[in-house]
């Protein structure tokens, strides 16, 4: 008997038997919702591939606020000119979120690693782009004061906003705490390039906090860092609010969004000495919006900004899209609701 012949017969018989029960329809073609053989690159886990509004820039070399790095215990941020050595064992376990649509940045979130002895604490380095902040604050000092005035009920002021010196620069210092959690926050704020840079130290351990503050003396900061006057100049372009007015513009091309998304699209640009836009940083934009805005801004032409008879670079902010909060809060407005 030829067994090899029997095998296909047996196989054919069993296939017929299977078809007589209700079986799924013939194998679907590949494509769309179907795949008979998903070889090739897998979708990686733990990677954000599909993004909504995100930050982007017209080139990858000009420093941007979110471009800081934490390496070998040193937090370095070329945009702000900050280098901040952290105590041994402090790292950034997780990167922060992208910039918010109101210009708020999480530059770094640092904590001691598991193996470091001692109590727990967090160093949160944040920045608020003062061009896009709807709160009534003209600079870092006013922003901290505003925060203190609107502190939520769970918190008590520990040390009201006052001036201090860190790393030979003036800082605004503000401390508050939660009696319930015995959690303290020390906020040290300054202003650089029209951003309120607020370094927030939090812990249940005030000794640790005081130690961290003393350690901040080892920071390097640009000369202009000042809670009420960090407006560029020196190594940085001068930052000027709302510089893109008709008065300063020679050529303006408005970006036209193909799709309405009703989101604010805050953008910072650096204008070179000839009045051309040399760098575009979109804080929060959908990809199609980013392209349209970048293409338009590349065509803008400003009158060069003169200082002491010489043209200088200028940094400014422009809000495209839908403003989130069209009217700035008045400082005298009572607490809402």
């Amino acid at each position: 008997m030829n067994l090899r012949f029997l095998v296909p017969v047996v196989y054919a018989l069993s296939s017929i038997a299977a078809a007589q029960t209700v079986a799924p329809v013939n194998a679907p073609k590949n494509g769309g919702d179907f795949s008979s053989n998903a070889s090739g690159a897998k979708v990686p886990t733990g990677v954000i591939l599909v993004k909504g509004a995100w930050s982007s820039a017209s080139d990858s070399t000009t420093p941007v606020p979110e471009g800081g790095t934490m390496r070998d215990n040193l937090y370095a941020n070329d945009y702000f000119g900050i280098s901040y050595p952290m105590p041994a064992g402090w790292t950034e376990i997780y990167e922060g979120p992208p910039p918010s649509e109101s210009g708020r940045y999480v530059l770094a979130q640092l904590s001691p690693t598991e193996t470091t002895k001692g109590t727990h604490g967090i160093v949160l380095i944040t920045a608020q782009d003062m061009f896009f902040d709807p709160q009534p604050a003209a600079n870092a000092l006013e922003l901290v004061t505003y925060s203190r005035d609107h502190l939520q009920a769970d918190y008590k002021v520990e040390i009201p906003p006052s001036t201090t010196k860190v790393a030979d620069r003036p800082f605004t210092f503000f401390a508050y705490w939660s009696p319930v959690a015995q959690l303290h926050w020390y906020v040290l704020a300054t202003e650089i390039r029209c951003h309120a840079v607020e370094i927030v130290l939090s812990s249940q351990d005030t000794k640790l906090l005081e130690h961290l503050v003393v350690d901040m003396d080892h920071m390097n900061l640009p000369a202009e860092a000042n809670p009420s006057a960090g407006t560029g100049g020196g190594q940085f372009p001068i930052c000027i609010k709302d510089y893109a007015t008709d008065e300063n513009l020679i050529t303006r091309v408005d970006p036209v969004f193909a799709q309405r998304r009703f989101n604010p699209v805050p953008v910072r640009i650096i204008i070179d000495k000839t009045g051309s836009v040399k760098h575009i940083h979109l804080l929060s934009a959908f990809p199609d919006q980013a392209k349209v805005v970048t293409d338009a801004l590349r065509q803008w032409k400003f009158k060069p900004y003169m200082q002491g008879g010489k043209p200088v670079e200028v940094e400014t902010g422009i809000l495209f899209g839908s403003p989130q909060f069209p009217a700035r809060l008045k400082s005298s407005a009572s607490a809402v609701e």
Partner: protein
Amino acid sequence: MHCPLHRISPVVKGSPLLTNEVVFENHNRNHTCRKNQLTVASSRIVSVVTLAVLFLPKPISAQTDPGVQSGSRGTGAPFSSVSLNSPSGILSFFTDGQTRFQAVESVSGSPSGNNGLGPRFNSTSCSSCHAQPAVGGSGAASNPQAQFTSNGVAPGNTTPSFVTPTGPTLEARFPFFFNSNGTVNFNAPNGGVEDLFTVNGRSDAGSCSLPQPSFSAAISAGNIIFRIPTPTFGTGLMELLDDSTLLNNQLNNLNNYLGVGGSFNRNGNDGTITRFGWKAQNKSLHIFAGEAYNVEMGISNLLFPQDRPLPGEDQLQTGLPSNCLNLSGTGYPEDTSNPAATPNAAVLDDVSAFANFMRLLAPPPTGGVVLNGQQVSSSNISAGASLFNSIGCAVCHNPSPGTTQVSNFTSSLTSAPVNAYSDIEVHHMGSGLADNVSQGNAGGDQFRTAPLWGLGQRIFLLHDGRTTNLVTAIKNHASHGSEATVVEQNFFNLNSTQQQQILDFLRSL
């Protein structure tokens, strides 16, 4: 000498002292004990406590999720004005909606109003998914989907491997479409629901025979994500908050020192804030119900009048084959108004009945918590509530985002507090939670702050039901790119007692 009762004012070396200037001292220097002139009196007492806590060994017992609380809290009841039938007729809207919510749909042949299922579906009734702890809730402990291929609901189908009897009731989506050679097309985001089952093999489905999506291939390619049902208790209140209330909350939180920076999802028609669903993509309860009826059960309706193919069938191929259309024989849409029906409530189409039912569901009542057989004290629960606020959870999980507007529907909805524990914003939740599905303005890593009311009786947690343990759910808040990392660290930096108090509080909701 160590001075436990006084906080020493630190001093920066070499800096001049100015009035009102705070100075910091190198703590290694010898110093005499002196009062800190800026110390608030109460913090002196707390300093003692703080130091005492520092020198005590930390409790050894790990914090424990008290787990799903059994026993009825009265969840699933209508609002009081509805129970009182005010205005007249509203109670029958509720009870009729609640009945229809539980109706098991067929493809054809059932009494009028219960046909139209498929040709693709995830389940056969609203309450099969929205069941826990009562009709209108979230997924049950026992997953009905696991029985469908053997109990006649989906005979000609294969049960997908991720559908298990005690796992979460769920839907599946493929973040990306497949190429024509079967590989993942990273340039073609998909993200639409890939219904688990087809009407294949059902005697009431005529000759319609459709393939199920390629779940095994999707799993091997890592090209699959899941979603579990969201509970609907109290959603009528969420629907009745004005945009300005939500915007004001966002404004008040702008300069938080926690790293939070949420935004709103908005609908493409009029730009106003949307609220329902895992990414807050749906504007109203009607849309929420209509979309679910169409997508999850395959029943076309007044809001979504066509039978729905799979995303790829619809966008890349030729839609559904004609022998899979109008299977109920009633024509389109399969769910519509019933002009001649009596009583009044029966005139409504199913989607309106579902929406009314959900809208009129009272929010889930809070309740006591049992941990390891022992009742947790109310002082522990309220301590947990305070801690929840203090460490920053409440910035996103806002205990009360506001008060509703005047309702044109029933008085219990008017000027009512909305104790949802959600700001109804979407937030970046990091690479650990990202599902790579974009919905409206919410990107693949953004999710609506999940309302926490009713958490005490919810079984499966997070958008895909990946855990039943609250501690794990909290851990998942921290990952690269998340706004919640600092608050998550604040939680785990608390001592065990404090963490336990928060967990106890959460299970009281």
